[in-house]
């Protein structure tokens, strides 16, 4: 359906349909994010011998995040007097918009996808990089020393980790011969890339955690050092935008991991009767759970260690992985 729309001549009707779909997706994603946050809090709580939220919306607090977001939306919006006003206002938007833009490229099932791009993977990585700009802008525009430090850390960290992230997926691209996410999933019909590319998976996982600014790489907002880092001055819905973008990215990154390494919507052998969407959701949940689990367990790295790890460990490993993959591919294709 989307393909047809994309190829049809532009018109007001198309615009309307696009907008409608976009809004629909927005709500679907927001719904996911809402429960993603809730599940994170619940799982964290359980692991920490607590019950977690249990007040709003029954025993499982099903409406907790909704209430939280509503509260944030109606909170007073404060802007520091000496902040750079225009930048301060636009920063959350810069951080937030790409988070949604990347979702367009992700194939959730073979049918449920918005844009089947030939360069889907590249698109994802390129667009997600824009968020860094938003975060640095926020840090700078707040005119707060902690925010500035956080912003600077974010810039350094996210740029450094983008490279191993890209490098780790090059192996997959080599094996598939395409940057198209659909084709990557199709290529995993028989065997998932996590089996063929275990090293790449580990590098990708680490780099993606760093990209998401989550523990143990949550330096830009390290609350015990920088109070809240780049968004220390933000409140209300502006802050909510940062928070949501963070969680939308978590959603997107988990989806991407599923697509790249866990075979997307493909079922396990003999379990094909379960619908593709369910498979995707299961794998996706597993990745989310892994991210939460890591967050519960680990302490935070230090900035210089983070850099060292990124450049001296992850990048060489990723490069070696590309080399070995290329070599093996050539060797196998020879016979």
């Amino acid at each position, binding site marked *: 359906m989307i393909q047809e729309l994309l190829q049809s001549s532009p018109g007001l009707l198309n615009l309307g349909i696009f907008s409608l779909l976009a809004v629909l997706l927005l709500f679907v994603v927001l719904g996911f994010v809402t429960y993603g946050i809730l599940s994170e809090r619940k799982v964290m709580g*359980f692991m920490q011998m607590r019950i977690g939220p249990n007040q709003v919306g029954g025993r499982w607090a099903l409406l907790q995040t909704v209430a939280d977001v509503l509260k944030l939306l109606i909170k007073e919006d404060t802007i520091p007097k000496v902040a750079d006003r225009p930048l301060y206002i636009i920063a959350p938007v810069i951080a937030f918009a790409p988070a949604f833009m990347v979702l367009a490229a992700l194939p959730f099932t073979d049918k449920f996808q918005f844009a089947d791009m030939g360069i889907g993977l590249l698109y994802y990585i390129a667009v997600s990089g824009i968020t860094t700009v938003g975060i640095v802008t926020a840090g700078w525009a707040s005119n707060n020393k902690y925010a500035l430090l956080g912003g600077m850390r974010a810039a350094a960290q996210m740029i450094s980790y983008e490279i191993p992230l890209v490098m780790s997926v090059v192996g997959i691209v080599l094996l598939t011969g395409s940057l198209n996410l659909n084709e990557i999933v199709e290529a995993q019909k028989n065997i998932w890339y996590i089996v063929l590319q275990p090293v790449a998976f580990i590098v990708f996982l680490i780099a993606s955690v760093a990209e998401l600014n989550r523990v143990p790489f949550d330096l830009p907002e390290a609350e015990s050092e920088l109070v809240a880092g780049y968004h220390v001055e933000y409140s209300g819905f502006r802050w909510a935008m940062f928070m949501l973008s963070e969680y939308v990215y978590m959603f997107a990154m988990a989806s991407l991991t599923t697509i790249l390494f866990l075979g997307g919507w493909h079922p396990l052998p003999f379990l094909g009767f379960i619908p593709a969407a369910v498979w995707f959701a299961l794998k996706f949940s597993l990745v989310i759970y892994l991210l939460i*689990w*890591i967050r519960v367990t680990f302490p935070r790295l230090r900035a210089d260690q983070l850099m060292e790890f990124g450049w001296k460990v992850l990048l060489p490993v990723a490069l070696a992985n590309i080399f070995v993959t290329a070599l093996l591919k050539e060797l196998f294709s020879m016979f």
Partner: protein
Amino acid sequence: MLGLMKGLGYTMKNLTRKKVTYDYPNKPLPLPDRFRGIQKFYPEKCIVCNQCVNICPTDCIQLTGKKHPDPTKRGKLIDTYDINFEICILCDLCTEVCPTESIVMTNNFELAEYSRDELFKNLEWLDENDENIRKVNKV
């Protein structure tokens, strides 16, 4: 890497362990008998000896006595008795020195009020505070 894995194992193990949080405002906290909460005052037992006023480290108790209305009886009766819970630290010394146990501790500890003035508790209030009274007051 091994250390990280061990840590992951530990948190995973705790996922299913029994939770330890209190369901506080819904269920009252389990408190031992000795717990030092807001005092309960028995005006009829008080002999106006002033010892609690003297021992109070923060000077938060104020009392006045009056002559016994029955002229044949000696001693005094309590007239007013105020504790200022803005500064009371619930240290238990007043109940410790009281010779007649006319002031004792209870297990009530919720003192939140909308105004500071309401933290000034008088004789009537302290007399009515008669729930969860401590059973054993002296060793």
